[in-house]
């Protein structure tokens, strides 16, 4: 029973993360796109935790929620915030 519940939660989190990936791709405001991809990374960290890989979660959170958005923000500061159509 517990295993099924965990699998259902994994499925739900995966679906929500797909939504945020789509939002990040569609968004013309690049800052928002970075935020969406950070939310998606947080959901992936949950997934990894549920799949019993806590050591990967630790590095994943630091890099994909902390360092990667930061580099991207530095980048869009240099190239401009809004995507040109």
């Amino acid at each position, binding site marked *: 029973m517990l295993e099924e519940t965990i699998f259902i939660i994994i499925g739900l989190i995966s679906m929500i993360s797909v939504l945020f990936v789509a939002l990040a791709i569609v968004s013309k405001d690049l800052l928002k796109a970075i935020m969406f991809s950070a939310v998606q990374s947080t959901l992936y960290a949950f997934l990894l935790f549920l799949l019993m890989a*806590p*050591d990967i*979660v*630790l*590095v994943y959170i*630091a890099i994909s929620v902390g*360092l990667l958005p*930061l580099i991207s923000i*530095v980048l869009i500061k240099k190239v401009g915030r809004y995507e040109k159509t």
Partner: protein
Amino acid sequence: MKKHREMIFITLLIVIMLVILIPTLLGGIGPIPHGDIRPLAKAYLNSTFNIYIKDLWTASPEAVAAIVWDYRGLDTFYETIVFYTAIVSCLILYREILGKRDISKGEGLSIVVKRVTAISLLGILVVGASTVLHGMLTPGGGFQGGAIMAVAPVIVIIVFSRLLVDTSRLSYSKVVTFRNLAILGIALTALIPIILGFGNAFIFQNQYKRSTNFSYPTYIFDVPMGGSLWFLNLFEGLAVFMAFYLAFNIILYSEEVSKEVILGEEYGY
């Protein structure tokens, strides 16, 4: 025209997915192993912290750290070298401005942000250090802890302004030296069994084996130390922290300074 292009793109994606999916489902990559034929994994996990077979154990309750640094130590060593070289080549690209003082003389953010950051910085560093130092007991280890600690210098540059980093004692050359020492530490930890065992040992040896007599510490008081794993985690954590520090130091230079690097030959660079 745009619609056409989108349709072609979508069809292409579906075709690629099918090309990968169908052979996989039909068993094109060979038979998928059953759950009950994993003797290799069982052998590793059974001997990782097995106090009854001390000839084979790694003295670390954390199986991932044991496999990464002890059973597959050379793999991880090469990974570390790849990361080290990647940062070195990144530094070479920016060699014109390395160690230079930035021209911006900002004061940083407001006093409220500074105080809050000062408190949380300590937390970040402590969590990172504890992840590194407990790598043989809990999930985590050198790279994870180093990456957690690397968030700290980035926040410092943004909140307390670039000037603080430029005038601090942790200068560019010192950081590079520390990083090289950390890599040297990893190499030495791998080689010490051979040096102290007078050749009667092998590299990345952790505990005493039947044919050898060298052993890293197994317990300190009643804490399992994991032998060489503790040292390797520590050096790896330091190396990763310093590497990220250098990389972010370069990326966060102000535009006028970093432009010097990319201007091109016609401007005399």
